[in-house]
């Protein structure tokens, strides 16, 4: 359906906790250096064929002054990631208590507190605990992370939590954009968070979807994805409001599109029908023609199927110009951060626009011959002025979201 409004929404704050480090600076440095953060799986034991993941490396400091100690003890690791990223984004945006009070929250997640819950479940079933420890399972509802962020940081605008698999936080960004465009709020924090857990790791491995080596998006020998974890947060703000208070505008959300494959619970539509529709709808919503796109941050999970379908999608929309549009997959460095991917990759794309620095596709030894003509940014550190970029996330169940982002001052 065509949209009436195409007002751009400002991004005035960024936060991130990823396998590359505890904040946006670490993330951007790691991206620029082309560092691959996929390493040994240490968080739990797994008896399958895959033993690697992109783990958040250290205990993450979180702002818990406003949270009772009993509550803090019961926060899941996913809650903590969300809190840390949200705190950084709010600080970055210069949100004081009054502005935070009115800030809405839109969060995307898939595993939430499952790591803690599965362990409590295991212990009870094995008789190691005589009762279910409910206090360890309180993070099971995914909306807990948004509640934690709200209470810890004093954000009391409208709140929503989405879970659409890999596109969850991209949908959260889209929803936050809509809320601001519709005038329901002037400020919204869009967050994505996810943590590794045995259930998800074992499930993907059983589906033979994991590469035993670090994933190789777009490589001819690619064998699957690598799982990651972390969180990212973006402060979205009405552009006039941002300018009036002198906020630094990192970039603009120019538009977004969501479309559904209605095809299969896990496999993408073979012709990428939903992905094409989402990309086209996003560009239309942004009022941007394909010729104006300077960079594509792909879903690029590294599975044989996804990458092939995705290139088909990009060819369908960008046509003969595609070889001149740099395309890269951040999952080559951070793995697939599932519910956090939309937000993490949006932060990476925002910084790419601002810095004029293309995120690379690492681990790419030999591109699939089907796309030998494409510019997949195999080398880190390439500087190019960028005005407009797209970032796409494709979720299990055929849920596709594309965001169109523009450099502040360039559009």
């Amino acid at each position: 359906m065509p949209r009436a409004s195409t007002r751009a929404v400002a991004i005035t704050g960024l936060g991130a906790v990823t396998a590359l480090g505890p904040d946006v600076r670490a993330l951007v440095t790691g991206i620029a250096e082309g560092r691959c953060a996929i390493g040994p799986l240490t968080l739990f034991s797994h008896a399958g064929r895959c033993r690697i993941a992109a783990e958040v490396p250290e205990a993450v400091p979180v702002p818990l002054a406003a949270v009772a100690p009993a509550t803090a003890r019961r926060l899941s690791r996913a809650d903590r990631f969300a809190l840390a990223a949200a705190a950084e984004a709010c600080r970055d945006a210069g949100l004081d208590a009054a502005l935070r009070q009115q800030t809405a929250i839109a969060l995307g997640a898939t595993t939430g507190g499952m790591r803690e819950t599965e362990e409590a479940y295991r212990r009870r079933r094995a008789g190691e605990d005589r009762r279910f420890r409910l206090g360890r399972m309180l993070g099971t509802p995914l909306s807990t992370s948004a509640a934690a962020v709200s209470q810890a940081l004093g954000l009391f605008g409208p709140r929503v939590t989405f879970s659409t698999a890999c596109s969850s936080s991209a949908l959260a960004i889209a929803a936050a954009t809509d809320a601001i465009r519709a005038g329901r709020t002037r400020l919204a924090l869009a967050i994505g968070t996810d943590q590794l857990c045995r259930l998800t790791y074992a499930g993907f491995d059983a589906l033979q979807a994991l590469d035993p080596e670090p994933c190789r998006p777009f490589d001819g020998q690619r064998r699957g994805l690598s799982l990651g974890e972390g969180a990212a947060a973006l402060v979205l703000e009405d552009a006039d409001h941002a300018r009036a208070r002198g906020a630094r505008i990192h970039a603009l959300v120019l538009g977004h599109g969501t479309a559904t494959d209605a095809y299969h619970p896990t496999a993408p539509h073979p012709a990428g029908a939903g992905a094409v529709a989402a990309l086209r709808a996003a560009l239309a919503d942004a009022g941007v023609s394909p010729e104006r796109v300077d960079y594509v941050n792909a879903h690029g999970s590294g599975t044989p199927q996804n990458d092939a379908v995705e290139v088909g999608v990009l060819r369908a929309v960008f046509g003969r110009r595609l070889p001149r549009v740099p395309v890269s997959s951040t999952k080559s460095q951070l793995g697939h951060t599932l519910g956090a991917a939309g937000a993490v990759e949006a932060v990476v794309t925002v910084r790419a626009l601002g810095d004029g620095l293309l995120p690379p596709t690492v681990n790419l030894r030999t591109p699939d011959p089907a796309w030998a003509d494409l510019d997949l940014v195999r080398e880190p550190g390439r500087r190019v002025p960028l005005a407009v970029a797209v970032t796409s996330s494709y979720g299990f169940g055929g849920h596709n979201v594309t965001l169109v982002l523009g450099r502040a001052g360039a559009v």
Partner: protein
Amino acid sequence: MSPLGHGVEAFWSGLLAGRRSPDGAVPPFERRSYARSPLGRRIDRTSLLALAAARLALADAGLAAEAVAGDGTGLCLGTALGNLNETASFLDRLFARGAANPLVFPNLVLNAPLAYVTIELGITGPTAMVTEEEASGEAAIAHGVEVVAAGRARLCLAGGADELDATLAAVLGEARLLTRGVPRPLDPAADGPALGEGAGVVVLEPLAAARKRGARIYACVEPHPGFAVPAPVHGWATDAGAVAAGLRPLVRDADAVFAGASGSPPRDTLEAEALKLALAGRPVPVTAVRGTTGDFGAAGALDVAAAALALATGIVPPTLGTGPAPRAGLAVVREAPQRAALRCAVVPGLARGGMCRPLRLEAVG
């Protein structure tokens, strides 16, 4: 789909008659009645409940399933805990044998109901899966209302589903968080909720379009973004005044309130106090459907259905289990349905962690 039976008629007549479900379970049904795609055999119970409710809603709206396929239709579903049964058995196998079932894993994502319903009905428009604990049903319907109001879809199916599960019952039972008898919503003597399961889906269309096609209109609803108040992250807010401030504009002219009260003391206390303050002494009829259906995250979708039915029929169903002195002196409808001129009904949509996603419905015509 509710513990009272399959479809609107069973739900509404059961509510009015004060029928009590023995176990909070949706009565058995044939999978093939609702799951018709080749994937139908694999659909998990939560998704199946959502799919059944979606098909029933379309039939009730006089819409053929084929007519809604395509990108002009949206779908917004909510669930608090999703597919618990298969998650538990997946983990059992993983921990006992180190083996994971690849056929079950795709069903464990929280958006499995969204995927299956879009596949079965061919919906390719805007879709979303939301999760807001006790307000999951309300939040999904509220999101659907926004989708239609923004012109992003001509039609939107919206609602939620949650299933009964033995592990959940064990977890809550061991923590002594369930009633030992029957749930008593809004009763000071309540000792906890009873668990239930079910799914509720509504069909949302622009009012003008619905009139144009001669649809039977139960009620109309405006978008509302909801609000948040300070609260313990994992618990219920204790400042009823903050909740009342948010609800006051919505209940100012309400003729009925469909409370989420379940017999859980902290939840019921908050809701009762907040409603008392927000209603400012007006003796507005209040009823709590969870006294009948039991408690589950998406039960609010059934509240919305009940509110719409109340507006269409002028009848507020009674609350089961509540004694003669309800909390906060609220005018809880008990013992028999209450007939009234109903122009406006409100579903408060409270959830833990300070979340509130209310819906205000109005009679039409």
